[in-house]
């Protein structure tokens, strides 16, 4: 876990003090809302339907017990006793008062946290593979590089007024658990021919009104040049990105209009004339960061008799093992998913009491570490196999052990019109209804991997374009309607979903999902996932099932 040095501490303290003064001036009428709004947004403070919303940055989704306990305390003291984890691995508090915000930032600073880079046209909070440092299939811990990007990008003066927001994701594994192809810049670590490590650099991915998958502009960038190359990309974007039209301001539009090849050529030209030494991280600093990400694992047997005994006598625990427990790089350890997807409840929501339970488990059983996954769940990354039964029991007692990871009830949903000022329709009730319909764990397991992603508007915070089934809330003649897409993926086999047909009213959505599941179960071959079957059959059988009544 990276710890702030004196520079980090000083600038976060300065920023907090500055914001306190800015809030006081706004409340006193010394500055107008038009002047204040960009300031509060640069501190992650939005005004939504019912109250202010504070979006707290969780760099590369990594937390420890002290941080999560502080978040629990803030949620209980200043909010309604719960928080909402987002697809950007941040935490949103939806009932914040402006007059409390400076105090909250001071509390966050005590545990080395802040809410910068969670809004505004800046380089946003960087995300990474949530299995980082724990999975056997990675070439390096991507958080070392994500932390370097965090230090380089936070309050970067040249990149604080970009044409539009800018998001970077990093992975070092072949399996893409960080959705790198839908980011402004996606970085995927590769090993070069001589054994050297580098990044495949993808640019111009993004969802929203105009979705694109990222294009590779460099197959292999030696890791030591990461920051200077990022700087070259940002410079080209900052110079040529459109500022005249908010809908065309993201880098994806620039890359699409120039073509990835030409954009890449301009980046290379920019990079060639830059002084790399000035920007790239010195080896000493890299070593300092790396030292913060080296947990000490015990030497353990790869097989746990305690776990095997527990599994033999408990079908629910065995199911939890199948879906929520994953192999670890260190023998005798496992990654354990904490499900925030209890059918009927709000995806990504967690109460202060539950946060405290997870913090205790992280401290006691997971080397004081936990992760936020962009699919709105948490992970205990370093649990001894011997301890998994106890962790499962504690999670189950707190309502956090639903064995549904990547199954049909593990639905991503943005806050939608229940909270968000931008939304056109609600997302949460649709997710609740679908998850309740498929709450039976046996049935969910029979259906297998099926990723449903719901957004309440075209901004696509719920990643609907890359859902196996995507659901987009639209306002159709004044009513909430839902547009379904099929066949999307945000992983290494990334693709954008294909439209199913005319939008459906809210009360028809769950039936449509069930009809499509029936088609899949009828059509699937040889253990195909829903996505595989769809890719083989195309949209026609699904369309026929859902719109049968209309013909």
């Amino acid at each position: 876990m990276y710890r702030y040095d004196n520079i980090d501490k000083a600038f976060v303290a300065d920023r907090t003090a500055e914001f306190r003064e800015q809030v006081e001036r706004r409340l006193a009428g010394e500055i107008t809302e038009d002047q204040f709004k960009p300031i509060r947004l640069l501190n992650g403070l939005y005004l939504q339907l019912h109250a202010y919303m504070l979006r707290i940055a969780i760099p590369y989704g990594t937390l420890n017990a002290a941080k999560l306990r502080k978040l629990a305390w803030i949620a209980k003291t200043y909010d309604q006793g719960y928080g909402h984890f987002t697809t950007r691995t941040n935490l949103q508090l939806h009932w914040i008062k402006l007059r409390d915000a400076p105090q909250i930032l001071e509390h966050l600073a005590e545990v080395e946290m802040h809410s910068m880079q969670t809004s505004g046209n800046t380089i946003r909070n960087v995300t990474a593979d949530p299995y980082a440092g724990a999975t056997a299939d990675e070439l390096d811990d991507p958080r070392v590089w994500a932390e370097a990007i965090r230090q380089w990008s936070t309050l970067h003066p040249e990149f604080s007024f970009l044409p539009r927001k800018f998001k970077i994701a990093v992975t070092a594994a072949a399996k893409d658990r960080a959705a790198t192809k839908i980011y402004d810049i996606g970085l995927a670590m590769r090993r070069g021919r001589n054994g050297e490590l580098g990044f495949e650099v993808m640019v111009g991915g993004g969802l929203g009104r105009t979705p694109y998958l990222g294009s590779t502009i460099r197959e292999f960038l030696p890791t030591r040049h990461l920051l200077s190359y990022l700087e070259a990309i940002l410079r080209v974007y900052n110079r040529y990105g459109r500022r005249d039209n908010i809908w065309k301001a993201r880098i994806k539009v620039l890359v699409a209009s120039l073509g990835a090849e030409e954009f890449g050529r301009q980046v290379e030209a920019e990079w060639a004339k830059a002084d790399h030494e000035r920007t790239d991280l010195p080896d000493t600093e890299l070593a300092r960061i790396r030292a913060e990400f080296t947990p000490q694992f015990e030497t353990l047997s790869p097989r746990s008799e305690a776990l095997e005994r527990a599994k033999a006598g408990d079908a629910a625990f065995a199911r939890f093992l199948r879906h929520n427990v994953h192999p670890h790089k260190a023998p005798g350890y496992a990654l354990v998913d904490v499900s925030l997807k209890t059918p009927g409840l709000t995806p990504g929501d967690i109460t202060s009491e539950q946060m405290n339970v997870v913090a205790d488990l992280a401290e006691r059983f997971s080397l004081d570490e936990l992760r936020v996954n962009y699919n709105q769940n948490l992970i205990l990354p370093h649990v001894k196999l011997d301890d998994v039964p106890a962790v499962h029991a504690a999670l189950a007692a707190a309502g956090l052990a639903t064995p549904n990871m990547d199954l049909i009830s593990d639905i991503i949903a943005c806050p939608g019109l229940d909270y968000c000022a931008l939304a056109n329709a609600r997302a949460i009730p649709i997710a609740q209804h679908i998850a309740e319909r498929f709450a039976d764990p046996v049935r969910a397991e029979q259906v297998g991997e099926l990723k449903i992603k719901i957004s309440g508007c075209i901004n696509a915070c719920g990643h609907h374009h890359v859902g196996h089934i995507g659901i987009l809330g639209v306002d159709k003649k004044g009513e909430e309607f839902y547009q379904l897409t099929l066949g999307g993926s945000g992983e290494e086999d990334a693709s954008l979903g294909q439209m199913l047909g005319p939008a459906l009213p809210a009360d028809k959505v769950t039936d449509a999902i069930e009809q499509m599941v029936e088609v899949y179960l009828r059509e699937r071959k040889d253990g195909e996932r829903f996505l595989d079957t769809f890719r083989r059959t195309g949209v026609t059988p699904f369309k026929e099932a859902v719109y049968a009544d209309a013909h």
Partner: protein
Amino acid sequence: MKALTANRLADGEAVFWNQGQWVPRFKDAQLFEDAAVAETTEGEAKSQQTVVVDPYLIDVIQSEGLWAPLSFRERIRALGPSNHPQHGKQALGGDDIAALQHAHGAARSTGRVNLIKRK
């Protein structure tokens, strides 16, 4: 018929205009039959920069003999989030809340006057 709404500056709560005061419950909102009077009042509200943020007019309709915002979005503002019925104004209960919950009408794009013209 129209009402005038905003979010309170200090805490962000959805509030409604009544004779120069801002009240938290929709049932206490002043209703404007005369559009010109409503627009003049909206102008007055916009000058209260240290009290509220972004005041605007909304259309209202009748529901169960009481008044309710036409727009679904505005009804959610007047009630609270539908996923947490214990949060927001809806937790207070009462006939006025029930009338809002039972109202039917438009979603976001209608019922907020001049929405399209705003940034």
